[in-house]
């Protein structure tokens, strides 16, 4: 098992390298440089100043040397400083992490809870009106573009009804509020983004748990449980659910990276101060160190999530053993 773990960890290195090379190349291929972003709107900047900026950022060197410099720093876990405001990249990411985590933990929790409830209850009532309307409901969430639904919700709850804030994480007067007021302020800002993202993500998991449940309740051991004369609820929630949960737990491991990497479009629409919006802002201002930092961390987390999912699988199911 340990040998397997080490092998998997070592295998992550070339993957991260490859992805960093790709990201590096792509952002340098994109038109405009960080220097242009700072200078192009300022008529006072002359060619000399521009050249100085280029060499300050190290952008005058050949591309492979720039990559090499970045790589040398990254192995010591130094992500460099942002071109935009000179602050360390790692600090910028660290301060954007909690809002993203908060939002995604809540919405993932809701997704898992309601997906299981919907999946199991519609499997038990297969092909009934309830089952079919749940299918329509979750696919509605899946098919509606999230940005459009987000805008509609903002319009309804923020403007027409005026009961929820439209965007951001805190009100302007946040610092003046009492503790209870602060908590309520945060909750009211969370409702719309959490609801919209949970609604969109429901379909995948609920369909998965529905089909998984359908498969399990056809098993012989469920028939055995019924033959014992157990109440139907015990049969479903004790005997069947336990077997349904295994693939679901694996899926939970696979959705770990999404917890942290955040969603660019989503956080931008709701002006949520998270990782996704940080990446968006960094791309818009060609802030190379930040873009690379975010993508490297997201890559590492995705790979770790996959590894965790595999390990969980081996732990839950004694018949699976990795060599």
């Amino acid at each position: 098992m340990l040998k397997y773990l080490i092998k998997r960890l070592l295998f992550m290195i070339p993957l991260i390298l490859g992805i960093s090379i790709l990201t590096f190349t792509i952002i340098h291929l994109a038109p405009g440089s960080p220097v242009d972003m700072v200078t192009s709107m300022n008529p006072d900047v002359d060619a000399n100043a521009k050249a100085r900026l280029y060499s300050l950022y190290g952008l005058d060197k050949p591309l492979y040397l720039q990559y090499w410099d970045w790589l040398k720093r990254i192995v010591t876990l130094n992500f460099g400083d942002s071109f935009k405001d000179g602050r360390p990249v790692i600090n910028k990411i660290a301060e954007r992490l909690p809002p993203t985590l908060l939002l995604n933990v809540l919405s993932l929790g809701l997704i898992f809870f309601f997906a299981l409830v919907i999946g199991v209850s519609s499997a038990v009532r297969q092909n009934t009106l309830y089952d079919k309307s749940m299918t329509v409901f979750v696919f509605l969430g899946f098919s509606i573009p999230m940005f459009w639904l987000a805008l509609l919700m903002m319009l309804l709850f923020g403007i027409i009804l005026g009961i929820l804030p439209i965007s951001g994480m805190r009100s302007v007067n946040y610092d003046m509020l009492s503790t209870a007021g602060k908590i309520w302020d945060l909750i009211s800002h969370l409702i719309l983004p959490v609801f919209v993202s949970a609604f969109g993500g429901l379909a995948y998991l609920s369909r998965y748990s529905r089909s998984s449940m359908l498969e399990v309740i056809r098993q012989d051991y469920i028939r055995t449980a019924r033959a014992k004369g157990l109440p139907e609820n015990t049969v479903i929630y004790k005997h069947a659910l336990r077997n349904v949960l295994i693939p679901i737990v694996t899926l939970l491991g696979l959705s770990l990276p999404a917890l942290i990497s955040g969603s660019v479009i989503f956080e931008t629409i709701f002006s949520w101060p998270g990782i996704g919006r940080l990446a968006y802002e960094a791309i818009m201002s060609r802030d190379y160190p930040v873009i690379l930092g975010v993508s490297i961390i997201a890559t590492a987390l995705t790979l770790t999530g996959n590894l965790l999912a595999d390990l969980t699988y081996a732990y839950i199911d004694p018949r699976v053993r990795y060599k």
Partner: protein
Amino acid sequence: MNSNNRLLEVRNLKKWFGVERGIFKRSVSNIKAVDGVSFHINKGEILGLVGESGSGKTTIGKMLVGLLNPTQGTILFKDRDVSTMKRSRLGLKLQIIFQNPFSSLNPKLSVGTIIGEAVRLNNRTGDNKHAQENVMQATKRLLQTVGLPGHVVNDYPHQFSGGQRQRIGIARALAMDPELIIADEPVSSLDISIQAQILNLLSDLKDKYGLSYLLITHDLNVVRHVCERVMVMRNGKIVEEGVTSSVYNNPEHPYTEKLLSSIPELPL
């Protein structure tokens, strides 16, 4: 035989499965899995039910323990109509052992849970500590009854062999204190040597607890060794019924004759 000795009586039992077609689920025809079957089982008797695959044997078994509802007909258990009895009451006295011991035990529950659950249901005990201890003791005793060591309560089904799993299945059925056990192909997925062990166990248990069996099988050799009476089933109907030795020696129905002549014999 007088009727007081009757444990189970089945009258004109039918199970039809509808075949539906089209968007309006129009019923186009019926598959008559069981088509008007009547028989009885006496106390302390082993009744064999033989027939080829698809003849409706298993459907009868499922209807007897209440896993399927009959389309028509009555099932009397100790002179009471089972359709008026509560499912859980019925389950207590009438248990079933399934064919495939590999798929009929929940892989995620320990042996102790699988059997203990039935013990608890049977005794209607609470969940307090004392009751839990009693359930555990009863579970271990049941395991020993079927020839497994009591300490396996914490093991999971995948750690056992096929024969051992079938023993667990039998212990599970015994946990309900049944009077009649429906054994649906109890040995057909086991090795020949293990088959004999399980059949011997079933017949020991019969003497010990005064059980009766309905033994559903396609294996005519098994029936000859174990059953006192036998019924031959074909296409949902019983074509012949009688004392095993006379059916085997003088089959009346041509189908029975055909079945018997198809028993493979080793040239010795």
